[in-house]
């Protein structure tokens, strides 16, 4: 990747590897700061926008619940129930859509020899993860203040579930990024085709045991549902899902990531040229 072997016959020593790593760290740091600036720096409230969407859904769900009383949270505290659904899902959707546009958006930066498409992808993944984790934490703190604190049963399992969603989104995003040069319109269909249907079938507003078994058999093919079930099982003492297929969720997430990386690698030059 880096030009550490630019001179034929030069041995790759630990110090060369170290300096390449230092460069890579510098580049990723610079890319993250640049991306943050591009996204949130333009407007005074820029950073605040990140919180608007999940907060909107929390509010909507609570209002709905007050009015019709019908959507149940299976004994789980309402605010926490919806937060554990919406924030991880937003991580999935954000990773997918921002990676799909990442290569095209940063083509000009590839003129710098130390910047590779891999750095761009890594920087965006890190940025999405850290911002959504921050949103998650702040929403939890907010809920604790408003609705009373809640002791998370198994934080590591929650994090694992979030990670699976993020990885799936990143994998899909890389696949789209690779397809953009041959099918430019694909950017416009990622949301209607994947984002929206998945939004309603991934268990953001329900858990698998709340829905009729005839529908459940089909909806369980959605791997994101398993991931959100994992998150809620880890979060709530009151809730333990009987429908989680850990192997399915794990293989799906890592499989998407692997295919995404392979597609990106094979289409990289094409993508840079025509972006």
């Amino acid at each position: 990747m880096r030009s550490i072997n630019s001179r034929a016959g030069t041995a790759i020593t630990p110090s060369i590897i170290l300096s390449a790593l230092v460069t890579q760290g510098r580049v990723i740091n610079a890319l993250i700061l640049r991306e943050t600036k591009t996204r949130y720096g333009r407007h005074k409230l820029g950073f605040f926008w990140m919180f608007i969407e999940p907060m909107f859904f929390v509010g909507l769900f609570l209002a709905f619940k007050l009015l019709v009383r019908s959507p149940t949270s299976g004994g789980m505290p309402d605010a926490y129930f919806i937060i554990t659904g919406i924030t991880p899902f937003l991580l999935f959707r954000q990773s997918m859509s921002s990676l799909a546009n990442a290569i095209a958006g940063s083509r000009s930066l590839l003129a710098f020899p130390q910047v590779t498409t891999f750095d761009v992808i890594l920087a965006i993944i890190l940025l999405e993860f850290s911002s959504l984790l921050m949103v998650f934490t702040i929403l939890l703190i907010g809920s604790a203040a408003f609705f009373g604190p809640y002791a998370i049963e198994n934080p590591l399992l929650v994090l694992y579930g979030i990670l699976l969603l993020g990885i799936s989104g990143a994998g899909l995003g890389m696949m789209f990024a690779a397809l953009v040069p041959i099918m430019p319109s694909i950017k416009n269909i990622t949301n209607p085709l994947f984002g929206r249907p998945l939004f309603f079938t991934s268990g953001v507003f329900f858990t698998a045991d709340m829905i009729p078994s005839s529908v459940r058999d089909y909806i369980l093919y959605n791997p994101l549902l398993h991931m959100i079930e994992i998150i809620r099982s880890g979060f709530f003492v009151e809730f333990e899902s009987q429908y989680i297929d850990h192997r399915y969720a794990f293989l799906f997430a890592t499989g998407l990531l692997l295919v995404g990386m392979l597609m990106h690698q094979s289409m990289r030059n094409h993508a840079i040229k025509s972006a």
Partner: protein
Amino acid sequence: MIELRNVSKSYRTSTGFNHVLRDVSIVFPTGHSVGILGMNGSGKSTLIRLIGAAEPPDKGSVYRDMRVSWPLGYTGGFQGNLTARENCRFVARIYGETVEYVERFTDEFAELGDYFDMPLRNYSAGMRARFAFAVSLACDFDCYLVDEALETGDARYKEKFRRAFEERREGSSVILVSHNEQTIRRNCDMAAILHNGSIEMYDSVREAMQHYKFLQTRAA
């Protein structure tokens, strides 16, 4: 010194492979301004991207023993929706330079005034070129790669930039690609011609010019 050894590069197009460079070997010595002449579409930009490691060669290797700039051009490397200051910071960070120094130097040298804090997309071509050159000077490279852009901007600024280069000439080099003979004649002390996938270095700029004229008339 920068050396290309048996470098080949081709691109796949809808009509088959386009061989931009075929088995090219050339040495760019330190302390010289080398101009590379080539007609439109002869692969000048590809060559400069290979020298600057913005792209890897298909075959062969590129050897550099100096700090080489990114290819300076009209837009190369910058984000239109960020301001000059923000772009400065990005460049300083990836090259491990002091952010404050690069910012200050660029601000003074590029003479952009209030535009320094406006998005680059609002710039004219001349202002963009001024900005690109100023940032690259701030980073203090050993070798500057220039893709055409020298001819933009007003005469006074071009002169300022040329002087800045002269000061650094001792240890540093310039590699400039252009299809414009004037640009090369004014800025370079050596010249090479890129034609049909191969490159040939000439001892004097004048000699290269004569041959380039010959190639142009033959092509026309």
